[in-house]
């Protein structure tokens, strides 16, 4: 059986990959993908702690992940709509070029 440590390390690794992507990539869509990866890494932690922690019958981790998936879906929809609106306005999705409040 896989110990809890391995899941936590894997989750930390996924979080760091998402963080690196969100910090280094300049395309707004890829920044959003990095944020999604970080959210998923957090979800993995919740499920791992639910599986190995005390009182799994309370289903707290599972509930948290279900709500977190719903939130991430809303976030992705609004974020991508914003990126499309910015692209229509400025003809770019490079976050370095979107640097003024007034178009």
């Amino acid at each position: 059986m896989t110990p809890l440590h391995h899941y936590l390390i894997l989750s930390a690794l996924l979080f760091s990959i998402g963080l690196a992507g969100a910090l280094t990539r300049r395309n707004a869509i890829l920044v959003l993908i990095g944020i999604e990866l970080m959210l998923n890494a957090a979800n993995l932690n919740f499920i791992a702690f639910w599986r190995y922690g005390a009182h799994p019958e309370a289903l707290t981790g599972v509930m948290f992940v279900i709500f977190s998936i719903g939130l991430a879906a809303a976030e992705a929809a609004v974020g991508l709509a914003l990126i499309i609106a910015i692209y229509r306005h400025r003809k770019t999705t490079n976050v370095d070029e979107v640097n003024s409040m007034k178009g």
Partner: protein
Amino acid sequence: MSLPFAIIALLTVASAVAAMSLRNLVHCALSLVVTFAGLAALFLQLNAQFVGFAQILVYVGAVAILIVFAILLTRGAEPGPPAPVANSPWWGVLIAGAAFATMAGAVISTALTARPDSAPPAATVQQIGEKLLHEYVLPLEVIGLLLTAAMIGAVIIAMQEKSKP
């Protein structure tokens, strides 16, 4: 470490790295699908069946399609020869590496007392539904309201602006 976990973890991490480092945006989106599927497999391995299938439905189904559509709609923005990576990406990688070192150090140095897994916990759909409609009914309503508001907001934001006469 069991062999299935090692295989799934390797696949997930490799595709996550690919999703964050490839040049072609469509390749990034496809690698991201593999990452999400790997995470769903991990959820299934942890005995959380409902969450695993919700992950497949929401992420592999909906979010990936949404990202592909956004890439297609912003296609002209993709730069050709100039690299989409920042001028000095090493600072970001360094910060992420420091974050990973901190978290991994904390995890390794903590004495986690894992429950003896004689009987893995079960989360049947019936149990989840009863919890959702008794204990968590208010958060459920709030998330429904939030999804409705997000949908309307996304449509309004992405709608073509009418030029005023």
